[in-house]
């Protein structure tokens, strides 16, 4: 998939400004050298939406394309692009920002499994203060199953469970899966803290990590 890009001055400045503010990255510094693209390990999987293309999309104001493209969901957060960028643009942080913007704009994730993974992880970690892999994977598989069943993809749901069960059994045999629950004692303090939600953060967007 090669996206033909056209300049949309009506959207360009507001989109770029929002992404720059939320990601803390200066998109205007990109001179399209494509050093990021040549190092991107998933560049072959994204229909050639490489980090440089993504930045271009944003600068040209293609909001729909920026919020809904394979790179946002295929990115493995390896940070190779940003580490090699001669202008220090950390595209992985732009990708993280676009995931959050897509969620805010109710754009359905191109990969529901990736979205389910991160939301399940965070939900499980927030509940007890430590991550319990069984709870996390349980939440994740439950979301995937619902997702597959509501689309009548029974075979997909079955295959997913079969492969996860296979891995789970192997982990159990190797003593690498545990049924004990780990949690923190300072749960109240932890919950108060994460409920704050960052009033200061909203005031200083450039800080966002």
């Amino acid at each position, binding site marked *: 998939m090669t996206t033909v890009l056209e300049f949309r001055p009506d959207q360009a400045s507001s989109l770029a400004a929002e992404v720059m503010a*939320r990601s803390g990255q200066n998109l205007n510094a990109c001179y399209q050298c494509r050093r990021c693209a040549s190092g991107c*390990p*998933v560049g072959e*999987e994204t229909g050639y939406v490489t980090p440089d293309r993504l930045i271009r999309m944003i600068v040209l104001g293609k909001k729909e394309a920026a919020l809904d493209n394979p790179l946002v969901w*295929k990115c*493995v*957060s*390896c*940070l*190779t692009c*940003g*580490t090699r960028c001669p202008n*220090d643009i*950390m595209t992985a*942080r732009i990708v*993280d920002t676009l*995931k*959050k913007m897509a969620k805010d704009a109710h754009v359905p994730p191109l*990969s529901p*499994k*990736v979205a*389910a*993974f*991160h*939301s399940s*992880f*965070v939900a499980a*970690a927030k509940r007890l*203060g*430590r*991550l*319990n*892999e069984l709870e996390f994977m349980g939440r*994740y598989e439950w979301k995937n199953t619902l997702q597959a069943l509501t689309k009548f993809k029974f075979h997909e749901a079955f295959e997913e469970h079969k*492969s996860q069960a296979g*891995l789970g059994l*192997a*982990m159990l045999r*190797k*003593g*690498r*899966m*545990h049924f004990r629950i*780990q949690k*923190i*004692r*300072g749960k109240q303090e*932890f919950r108060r*803290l*994460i409920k*704050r*939600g*960052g009033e*200061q*953060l909203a*005031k*200083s967007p450039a*800080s*966002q*990590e």
Partner: protein
Amino acid sequence: MELAYYPGCSLRASSEIYDLQCKRVLPAIGINLHELDDWNCCGATSASKMDDFLAIAMPARNLGIADASGYAELVIPCSACYSRMLVVQKVLESEKGILNEINGELSKKVIGKTRILSILEAIGPVASSGELAKSVVRKLEGLKPACYYGCMLTRFPYGVPVPDSVENPQGMETILKILGATPLDWSYKTDCCGASAAVNDNETSIKLMSKIMKDAIAREANCFVTTCPMCQLNLDAYQEKVKAAYGIDRSMPVYFITELIGVAVGLSPADLGVGRHFVDAMALLRELNLYE
């Protein structure tokens, strides 16, 4: 050396053997660990994809606990935990508003004085002082590891000083040479294994791991060595699948750096959980007469 220790959730679950190895092996080379009291999950890479504040607040509580621990340095063996804590410490240095907001809720406030070390930085001084060499009772002769660093030991989403070469780190090689092994030069040491993609985008992850395996085999490595529990689990648990999908006919055990140090200083591989790998990790040690 007395260090505060943050194991993280993985080391209490699927990578429990890494926790066990850290606690047995590091004291054997003069590094005593003191676990942080009531530490919480660092949020890993997921928190920053969901909620900006959470991604800072979760590691911050641990930083406060570390600052109150009385130890000047904190070792974090898991690469994801290490990266998150280091990055958040740096962010809070300049973001006083967020720092105050967070400290307002914490009983142990973030001061930012604790130095955060990866496991390689913790072992580094023991290696360079010659102490490690003195502890070696069994040279790892014949071991030709491909040292696999993955992403999070040298690449960070925020400007922090990186203690090793970003593109060609040598921390593991330095240690393994002292242990008598012959680490190899190769091209994929900082490439990504896919991390969580192994679960949520398996095909992509399997493809990335196939490239890593093929290069290591082409360089005639006989094992991988890593410090990251996620890299270890991926390359180990999914290796059969990678081999089948990409026509690779060799298996490669995936060691944690701690188990190889343990073997070299005379600890029993069985006691270190070397038998709990998916790809047989005992066979190579037996073949090289490092374990009877």
